[in-house]
């Protein structure tokens, strides 16, 4: 009985964490839509309206989150040594995002199919 209870607990935790992750992706997609990222980066996040804009679909989630944080630092006037990106458009979007928004949208973009790869 004790073992069954433990197993049940484990099962509930597993389901719980799975659901939490799904919710993050869903929230990420909602942020993507709310900020209208598709108007430049393309609806599929891999067909930007101009080739001078990056493909985001399938990029590393932690890199995408880092990039958004660097835009936030750039918009906040952080010194160059702080690892910043100064861009009027992306800076204006990034400052509207909470830490959680950044993680969510990065996770959702990373989960999308795209042509990016680690190759040499």
């Amino acid at each position, binding site marked *: 009985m004790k073992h069954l209870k433990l197993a049940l607990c484990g099962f509930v935790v597993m389901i719980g964490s799975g659901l939490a992750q799904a919710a993050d992706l869903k929230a990420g997609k909602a942020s993507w839509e709310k900020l209208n990222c598709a108007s430049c980066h393309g609806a599929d996040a891999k067909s930007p309206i101009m080739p001078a*804009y*990056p*493909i985001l679909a399938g990029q590393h989630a932690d890199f995408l989150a880092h990039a958004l944080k660097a835009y936030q630092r750039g918009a906040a006037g952080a010194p*160059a040594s702080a690892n910043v990106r100064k861009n009027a458009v992306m800076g204006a979007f990034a400052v509207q995002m909470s830490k959680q928004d950044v993680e969510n949208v990065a996770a959702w973009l990373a989960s999308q199919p795209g042509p*990016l*790869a*680690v190759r040499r």
Partner: protein
Amino acid sequence: MKLFKFMSPNLKRSGSASIARRLPQVFAGLAMAASCAFASSGLAAEPAVGNAEAAKAKVSMCIGCHGIPGYRASFPEVYSVPKIAGQNAAYLQVALRAYASGERTHLTMDAIAKSLSDQDIADLSAYYAKLK
């Protein structure tokens, strides 16, 4: 000054009255010079055409990070270095120029981007865009 002499060889000797008479001529010369300047700056802005084959001799400085699966940078947060194979060539050029100009900052990438010529940037961008 050479330009003015060319336009009007006796400008130097002539008085202010004659300069006034020649004003239209001077303006025409200035306009011509200005249009030449624009034309030449237009040429300078012409983007270099990337040669992916030529990049093969230049990727050694990229592959130590971007060619290693799971490689991470650590400042100011720990994050995977971006996947650049299959990225848009035009965007890769924009990113490298942003590092060179200081619009984007990253200790290693700043130094690398500043060491690259326009041709290097075009070649490397073409190479990585094709690498899928």
